């Protein structure tokens, strides 16, 4: 949600996870929105790009990395979970289209699997998981109340002026 105009970022939390000697970063950005109690948290997983020439690194058992990073994200979220009302992450898909529709579709499936796994760990506090697809992006929102119950979200949707296809997961 970085760059979104309705959010006021108050802090970030960033941790490095080492899997098979390779570093990966999990970043949480904590945001406040006026008239909403609690945090709206954005989640980002980053590869340590540029830390090594990727051509010299052997292929990786990727699912281990994915599970370790998602697990770490859940652990990072837990201390503030009581004060969290919305957690989300998204993909912008315009550039993925340039790389080819297969890449976009594969990435959406991978992110969807991560969202489902994380939801199992967080649903006692954030019971609703919605997947929102629009032209140019896909977002996953874990929410305390159903996302359409928030007037701020409805305002965002109107301002976006694009059709959003919502799937409740």
């Amino acid at each position, binding site marked *: *949600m970085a760059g979104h105009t309705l959010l006021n970022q108050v802090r970030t939390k960033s941790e490095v996870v080492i899997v098979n000697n390779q570093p990966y970063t999990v970043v949480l950005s904590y945001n406040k929105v*006026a*008239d909403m109690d609690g945090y709206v948290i954005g989640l980002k*997983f980053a590869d340590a790009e540029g830390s090594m020439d990727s051509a010299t690194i052997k*292929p990786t058992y*990727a699912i281990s990395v994915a599970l370790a990073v998602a697990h770490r994200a859940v652990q990072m979220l837990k201390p503030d979970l009581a004060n969290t009302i919305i957690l989300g992450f998204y993909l912008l898909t315009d550039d993925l289209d340039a790389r080819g529709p*297969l890449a976009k579709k594969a990435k959406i499936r991978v992110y969807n699997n991560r969202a489902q796994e994380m939801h199992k760990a967080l649903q006692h506090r954030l019971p609703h998981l919605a997947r929102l697809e629009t032209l140019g992006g896909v977002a996953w929102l874990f929410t305390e109340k159903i996302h359409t119950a928030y007037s701020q979200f409805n305002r965002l949707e109107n*301002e*976006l002026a694009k059709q959003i296809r919502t799937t409740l997961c």
Partner: protein
Amino acid sequence: MLIRLETKELVEFPDELGALVLADPREGDVPDFTPDLVNCLIHDALVPMFNPSFTHEQNIAQAIAHFTQIGPASAASLEKARALIADYNKNIAPDAVGYVDRNLMGYLYFSHNTDAAKPALVIDQPNGLLDALADLNAEFTLDEYTAPVPEHLLKRKRKPESGG
């Protein structure tokens, strides 16, 4: 269909389970995924479901039940998915099962920056947004707009990127 578990053990899973993963009815039509992408996707879906306390047979049955419960995939999707699994079986050597090259892995699993010039949010009705923001009293940035914005509402520009 070979799957590599987190213990690095190679296990034979039924091809049909791989087809169920690829033909997931929640994802629409089955794209022409390459064997490399199939390698990634079947591990991504199936390895997390694998519980080391159960036998392989129990885990496989559990995974099949999971996908069956989601709902039926179309016959066309399943047929296509089976063909993709057959290609995976033919083209991915046992040593490569479960392994993804660094470039593809970084791409599929992690956030990355889009072109810095592209806005994350294009406002078609800037005056409408300004009114809404005045109500919210929120910090405000616009990457692209068509009407002049009052100076005091402009803050720093943020670089658009995927993530959260």
